[in-house]
């Protein structure tokens, strides 16, 4: 049964009001809380017992699988290794994410390594949210790693979000794209107080006509810090674009380092990066529509992170 904290965390990370329909795997405090498989989606514990293998049958269409992790046990640092095997010609949505509730002075953390093997012509939409709540003073740590291997003409959209409460985050995203593949990564991170978040990204465009687009949006409040690194490497005729924007509020600090590397003459790689405060003309425009200064700030940040 889900208690009130579980429900709040599930709502925050996976937009779930209750146990989801269809395939799911809910992990709570390092243990399996509930699992359901479907005719096309199988979930089983891996051999090492430190994670799960989610297998999507070839040709599966418009199905979804939820695999949220929730933590509320003081002192626990949970580590999982999940593998997703996405069958050819399938089209699925995967909703992941981790929610931490910290109620004591002891630290809590989760390190999730997600490996995706996406078959030919398969399409996935991956939504991952990270959130930490609770009155406790213990440090909340979330260190996700995403490894993506895409076969011919596969398509993936990854929406990675960390909104609030996480004291320390170290993210690593790695992807290898085969011929004709397309990958869209959208990362949104909000930090506050003295929180620190680091995101390292290595995308390799291996196949001809592969495309990658990475969009990063950072909002840095209080005295927090965010560092963003991305390297886009082209090994074939391909297209890649990086767009990273950081809004600094208060005394936040940021380091953004986009890097492009072409090892093929047909590569087209571009990047745009910006760090700065909210633009005055945006604030004035919204205020001229009758919005107060504070509401204008909130609306601009909400839109930026949407």
């Amino acid at each position, binding site marked *: 049964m889900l208690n009130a904290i579980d429900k709040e965390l599930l709502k925050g990370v996976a937009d779930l009001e209750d146990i989801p329909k269809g395939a799911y795997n809910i992990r709570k405090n390092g243990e399996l809380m509930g699992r359901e498989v479907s005719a096309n989606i199988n979930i089983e514990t891996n051999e090492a017992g430190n994670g799960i293998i989610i297998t999507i049958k070839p040709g599966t269409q418009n199905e979804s699988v939820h695999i949220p992790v929730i933590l509320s046990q003081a002192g626990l640092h949970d580590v999982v290794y999940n593998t997703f095997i996405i069958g050819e010609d399938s089209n699925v949505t995967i909703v992941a994410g981790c929610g931490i509730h910290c109620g004591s002075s002891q630290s809590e953390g989760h390190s999730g390594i997600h490996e995706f093997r996406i078959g030919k012509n398969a399409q996935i939409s991956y939504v991952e949210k990270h959130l930490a709540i609770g009155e406790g003073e213990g440090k909340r740590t979330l260190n996700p790693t995403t490894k993506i291997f895409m076969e011919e003409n596969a398509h993936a959209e990854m929406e990675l979000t960390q909104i609030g409460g996480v004291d320390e985050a170290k993210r690593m995203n790695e992807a290898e794209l085969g011929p004709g593949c397309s990958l869209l990564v959208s990362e949104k991170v909000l930090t506050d107080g003295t929180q620190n978040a680091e995101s390292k990204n290595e995308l390799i465009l291996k196949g001809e006509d592969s495309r990658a687009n990475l969009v990063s*949006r950072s909002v840095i409040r209080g005295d927090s810090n965010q560092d963003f690194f991305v390297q886009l490497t082209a090994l074939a005729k391909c297209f890649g674009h990086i767009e990273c924007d950081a809004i600094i509020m208060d005394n936040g600090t940021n380091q953004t380092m986009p890097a492009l590397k072409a090892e093929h003459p047909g590569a087209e790689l571009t990047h745009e990066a910006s760090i700065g405060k909210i633009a005055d003309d945006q604030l*004035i*425009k919204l*205020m001229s*529509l*009758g*919005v107060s200064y504070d509401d204008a700030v909130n*609306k601009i940040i909400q839109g930026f992170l949407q």
Partner: protein
Amino acid sequence: MLELKNITFTAPGTDVEPPRTIIDRLSHTFETGKLYAVTGPNGSGKTTVAKIIMGINAQASGSVLFEDRDISDWSISERAKAGIAYAFQHSARFKGITFRDLLAISLGTDDEDKLVEIIARVGICSMDFLDKPVDAKLSGGEIKKIELATVIATNPKLAIYDEPDTGIDLWTIDPMVELLKKEKEQYGTTTIVVSHNRTFLEAADQLILLRRGKIAYSGDLEGALPMLRDLSICTFTDTCEGVADVECYR
């Protein structure tokens, strides 16, 4: 409905330049439901006056009265809530905010029917604009149309348009002028258009010609023509003033 009383605005000085008076003891009364065109050479203070009315620029002295209330110290938001709206010459570009979002803020509701209604009222924006992000990818014409729509959606008592034709194609200027006239006639909107475009000047009930931060002329277009012609010949203050060994002998 709007009264500017003895307004002075001074641009702060820099290490190399002393403070500069942009608006010099300017006074004018604007009547309800009239369309005013404010024109004048570059640097004459047109946009500065418009921004003072909206509260974007703060006057050094003088006062702004709106519907008999002294709003000189009101914030931009307070003036907007009181019924003043402003279309910017250079519209803000956002990331993650769509035309729908801005329109909903202007209207105070995200009701689809109401949004469609306002687009129909504005006329110059197509329905497929609605979900366009208001970002750097929009063309100059698209962003101006969006700017106009967000102003009209507030149902303003006083609408200020700063060079609304910037980036607009020739075929849209006439419909835009007609739109502002229609808004004035149907909703009684007092309208101030800052423009150099003759189409807007011709549409105005009253033309205000600014020069060096003062009103050089106020009246109909015909009366202003000699001065406009003169200004079009001599641009000394814009192009020559301050240049060594150059003087105006006219």
